[in-house]
């Protein structure tokens, strides 16, 4: 099966719903993952990420819809006959087997010879930088090492797709950052299609080719990290990913322009029209500048306000500015020549029309 740009489609969800009693854990979800792509399922707790992933592994049966793997409908194929390799959040290493036996487990099921298995164990341990760990007991390894073993065990069987459920969730920040890099490099080297569950937006933005943002069992947006950040499709996505200033005011259209009226000050909005169900106008903090009071520039949006707090963060300065209806966050970069405002100072906020986005409700 081919997608529009010619790449093979490795995973396809088509109208997939999973109900637990009255609860729709996953609600009519459809998406494709291209061959070799890393798709992150991102969303708050309880949004249905794990359930979505587990249905592909075959641990849960969809209530409705079909799931295809490399073009074959696998909705009713039992787990052990599906070609997926899963990395669990707590790694699920077999405690009664050595690292080598853990890796050999899947290879034995595929009927490899002893010698081949030994070679493969060394090969994958090499890939995850754990040379010589084959005879170790997984219980005596650090969290990071266990994570690597879990990854090695999953890639050893050369699955069609790799499934990862918060694989770095149990690790501290520093180790997570390091393994994020290693995992993505390994994934790219092997060119293995990956479905990656996380509730950590930074992680998703860093590693994913595309991100599917989930909320209450539904996919709100599925797009590249840049697009999800810069052009969030819905208010939920705008709010969930990154810091966001929602501007409150009266949204309307005048002579072809979409305008937000904030207590008499008009702000131009980068939108083709006002959606029927309204929408939320927002600006990211780093897109705004805090200027001296009295600053004017017709080519951009401006709005007067008063600094209520200032946080000096080294590489940037964060202001909280009261604009009447609400308080917005403004991040000024700490470049040479930037004048710092003090709390209580009147300022004018300026930002481009382009960055004044409209998210659907």
């Amino acid at each position, binding site marked *: 099966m081919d997608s529009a740009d010619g790449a093979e489609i490795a995973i396809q969800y088509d109208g997939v719903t999973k109900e637990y009693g009255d609860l729709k854990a996953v609600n009519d979800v459809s998406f494709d993952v291209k061959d070799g792509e890393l798709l992150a399922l991102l969303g708050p707790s309880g949004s249905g990420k794990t359930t979505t992933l587990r249905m592909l*592994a*075959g*641990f849960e049966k969809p209530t409705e819809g079909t799931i295809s793997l490399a073009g074959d409908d696998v909705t009713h194929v*039992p*787990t*052990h*006959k599906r070609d*997926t*390799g*899963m990395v*669990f959040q*707590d790694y*699920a*290493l*077999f*405690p*009664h*087997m*050595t690292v080598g*036996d853990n890796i050999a*487990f*899947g290879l034995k*099921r*595929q009927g490899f010879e002893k010698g081949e298995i030994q070679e493969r164990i060394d090969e994958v341990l090499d890939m995850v930088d754990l040379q010589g760990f084959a005879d170790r007991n997984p219980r005596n390894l650090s969290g990071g090492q266990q994570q690597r073993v879990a990854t090695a*065990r999953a890639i050893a*069987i050369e699955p069609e797709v790799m499934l990862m459920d918060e694989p770095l969730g149990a690790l501290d920040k520093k180790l997570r950052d390091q393994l994020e890099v290693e995992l993505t490099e390994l994934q790219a080297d092997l060119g293995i299609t990956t479905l990656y569950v996380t509730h950590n937006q930074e992680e998703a933005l860093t590693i994913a080719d595309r991100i599917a943002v989930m909320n209450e069992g539904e996919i709100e947006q599925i797009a590249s990290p840049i697009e999800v950040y810069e052009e969030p499709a819905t208010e939920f996505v705008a709010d969930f990913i990154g810091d966001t200033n929602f501007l409150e005011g009266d949204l309307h259209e005048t002579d072809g322009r979409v305008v937000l009226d904030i207590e008499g000050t008009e702000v131009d909005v980068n939108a083709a029209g006002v959606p029927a169900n309204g929408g939320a106008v927002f600006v990211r903090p780093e897109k705004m500048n805090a200027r001296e009071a009295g600053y004017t520039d017709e080519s951009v949006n401006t709005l007067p306000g008063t600094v209520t707090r200032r946080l000096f963060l080294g590489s940037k300065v964060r202001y909280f500015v009261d604009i009447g209806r609400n308080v917005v966050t403004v991040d000024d970069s700490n470049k040479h020549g930037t004048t710092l405002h003090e709390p209580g100072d009147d300022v004018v906020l300026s930002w481009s029309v382009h960055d004044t986005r409209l998210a659907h409700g």
Partner: protein
Amino acid sequence: MTRQESETTFGRVNERLSSVLRKYSDTQFGKYALIGPTLFVVAVLMIFPTIILLSYSFNPYDQGAIQAGSTLAHYVRAFTTTLYQDTLVRTIKIAVIVTIIDFVLGFPLAYAAVRKGGWMGKLIVIATLAPLTIDLVVRSFGWFILLNGTGVINSTLMELGLVTRGNAPQLLFNETGIIIGLSHVMLPFMVFPIINVMHTIPHDLEEAAQNLGANRLTVFTRILVPLALPGISAGILITFVVSLASYVTPALLGGGVRVIPVVITETFTSTSNWPFASALSMILVGVALLVIIAYQRVLKEMEGVGGV
């Protein structure tokens, strides 16, 4: 007193007690003081009587009376008389079969009780446990109603036309009856140790194995059995040893078919040949001890190979 009050009073006493226990269990004296009562009970109720039996078993028995002296005659008689040989073999055979049946029934029950959870899990636990609250004799009579020639099972089979009165299976007063009854009695002893250990096995280990291509049988043999081994071995050992020594159920459901404990009881009560009955008892104790020792050896070996 309201429920709330009684709970807090109880809770306070409980807390006080456990803090005292914690404090003293760290001292040498405290340790002995704490296990003392148990040791005392074991000594008085188990070891002491066994020693008496052991000494009886060597006493000669002549002209209807126990004589002074020492002889191996009772052991020789037990091992050389066909009747007792057969009974011993039958007793062991029944214990083995009951243990196998209870493992085959008990493992899936224990598994389901833990993995299904919810009302299903509770139902399994209660259904397994409930018979323990009913007296052994009453339970055996329950089986009597089900199993006898015109009992519930046979009349159902006849009604379904699967058997006729002439070839209806004999389910009572033979080995079959004993096996059915004992399997029921012993099931909780198999199920509960396995439930305990099953709670410690994370479910995602099974999922990981399936994900790596293991079917149900492989998950069972390569993941569940090795990890549940402590519980499985406890269940098997208790079931086997207690089956070997059980008296009430075989006496009621076995009819003319006897096992060693029944023979021992009959010898004690209807003859005065206590030395011979003691010798039979010691043989049974010996068999149980042998099995326990052999079993521990095997388990240790298995741990040595990593239990795979």
